[in-house]
C-alpha cells in the first residue's frame, strides 16, 4: 500500500507538490499523469525517499517515511523496484551484471543468481543478450534491462518513472505490456507518464497532477490533452 496524506513538497520558492492525498492498494496498476513540471517525478522521488515532504505524511507498506532512519533506507528501497527514465545502468557492466546487481544487494546466493537473471531476461525479451553492454543496445532494450533489474528481486511495488519517455509508440507499448503482465502477477505498479496514448489504451486508474495539485483520481481514467 502507498498512502499520501496531504503531502506538500517545496524546493525553495517552488511548490512541486501541493496538498496531495491518495491511497494505492496492493495489486493496483496506477498511472500518474500530467504535463512536464506537474510533480510526477517529485512524487516518485518522495516514494523512494530521495527527499522528505515539506508537509504531510507518506506511508509505503509498513514504512512511515518520515520516521524511517538513514540506516533503514537501503532495506526500504529493496522493497521497491524502480524503472528510471534515464535507465541508470552501469555502462561498464554487461546486461547480466546490471540485472544481477539487484540480487547481489539482496545477498542472494550466487548459484541462484544466474538462473534468476536468465529467466527474467527471457521474460522481458532479452534472451541471448546477457553478455551485451548497454552501449550495444537500443533504447527499448535498455528499458527492458532496467525493467528486468527492477523486477528480478520480486519486490511488491514497481515504480516506473517515464519508462516510455524516449521510445517510439510501438516499443513503448511493449514496455507497458510487460508492466501489465507484472501487475497481473499481483504486483503494485505505479507508472508516471505524459504519454496519453498509452494511458488511454489501457483504461487503468489514473491520478492526474497539474502544477503540483491532484486534479483528478479516476478508477478507469483517460488522459485529456489541454
Amino acid at each position, binding site marked *: 500500500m502507498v498512502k499520501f496524506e496531504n503531502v506538500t513538497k517545496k524546493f525553495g520558492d517552488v511548490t512541486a507538490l501541493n496538498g496531495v492525498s491518495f491511497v494505492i492498494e496492493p495489486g493496483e496498476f496506477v498511472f500518474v499523469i500530467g504535463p512536464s513540471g506537474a510533480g510526477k517525478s517529485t512524487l516518485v522521488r518522495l516514494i523512494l525517499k530521495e527527499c522528505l515532504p515539506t508537509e504531510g505524511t507518506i506511508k509505503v507498506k509498513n514504512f512511515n517515511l518520515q520516521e524511517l532512519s538513514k540506516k533503514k533506507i*537501503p532495506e526500504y*528501497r*529493496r*522493497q521497491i523496484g524502480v524503472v528510471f527514465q534515464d535507465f*541508470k545502468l552501469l555502462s561498464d557492466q554487461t546486461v547480466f551484471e546490471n540485472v544481477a546487481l539487484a540480487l*547481489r*544487494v539482496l545477498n542472494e546466493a550466487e548459484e541462484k543468481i544466474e538462473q534468476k537473471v536468465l529467466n527474467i531476461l527471457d521474460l522481458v525479451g532479452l534472451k541471448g543478450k546477457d553478455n551485451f553492454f548497454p552501449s550495444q543496445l537500443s533504447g527499448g532494450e535498455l528499458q527492458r534491462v532496467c525493467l528486468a533489474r527492477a523486477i528480478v528481486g520480486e519486490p511488491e511495488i514497481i515504480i516506473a518513472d517515464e519508462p516510455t519517455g524516449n521510445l517510439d509508440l510501438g516499443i513503448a507499448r511493449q514496455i507497458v505490456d510487460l508492466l501489465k503482465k507484472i501487475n497481473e502477477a499481483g504486483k503494485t505498479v505505479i507508472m508516471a507518464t505524459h504519454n496519453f496514448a498509452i494511458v488511454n489504451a489501457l483504461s487503468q486508474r489514473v491520478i492526474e497532477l497539474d502544477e503540483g495539485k491532484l486534479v483528478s483520481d479516476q478508477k478507469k481514467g483517460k488522459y485529456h490533452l489541454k
Partner: protein
Amino acid sequence: MRRSPYQALAATLIMFLTFFLATVFVLTAGGFQVVLRYFETRPQVTAFLKDETTLEQVDTIKARLAQTGKVKEAKYISKEEALVIYREQNKNDPLLLEMVTANILPASLEVATKDIAFLPEVAQILKSEPGVEEVVFQEDVVKALHNWTSTLRKIGIGLIGALGLVSLLIILVIIGMKITLRKEEIEILQLIGASPWYIRAPFIFEGMFYGVIGAILAWGIGYLLLLYATPFLVKFLSGIPILPVPIPFMLAVLGIEILAGIVIGSLGSLLAVKRYLK
C-alpha cells in the same frame, strides 16, 4: 584499479617507500642492538703490547690489575695466537692472509672488569704501563653505539612516522578521486537499495590491498638487498655474530609490516569514504 592504473601505481609506490624505509630501519636498528650487546659482554679493555714486552712484564701487569680487585679476567694473547685468530676471521679472503705473519700482529692483554664502572680506572692503569702500546677502551665503543642507536631510533621513528602519514593522505586522496569518478555508479547502487557496507567495502579493500602489496614488495626487496650485502657485512663486522638474520625475525617483520599496511590502507580509505561518500 584497471581503470586508473597510474593512481594504483602511485599508491603502491608510496606504501613501498614507507615500508622499505621501515625494513631498512628495523634491520639497522636491530643490527646495532646486537653489536651493542656483543660489546657489552665481551672483554671490555684490550691493551696492545709493544713487541719488546716480555712475559714477565705481562705477569707484572696482570698482578697489578688483580690487586685492584676490579678485574674479572685478564687474558694474554700471544702473537702466534693472534695470527690464528686473524686467520680464522679472514679464512674466506686469501688476499688478506697473504704476507701476514705472527711478527706483524701485536700481542695483547684482554681485560674484563667486574663492572662497566671500573673500566676507566683499569684503562688508566694499563695506559700507564711502559710495556703497553695502545689501549682500546671499549666503553667508548659501547657509549658511541648507545648514542648511535638512540639517534637512529629517533630519526627512524620520525621519518617512518612522517612517511606513514604521507601514505595515509595519498591513499585518502586517491580513493577520494575514485569515489568522485564513480559517483553515478554509487548513486545507482543507493537507489536500488545497496547497503552502505556494500558500497564502501570495495574502496576499503582497495586501500588495504595497496598497503599489503607495498609492504610485501618492500620487505622482499629489503631482504634480497640484505642477502646480497651479507658477504660484505660479515667481513666488515668480523667476529660479531650478527648475520645471517634469523628467519623467524624476518617473518615477524613481514607480519608486522603487512598488518601496518592493512591499517594505513584501510584507515586512508575509511577517511576518504567518510569525507566523499555522503
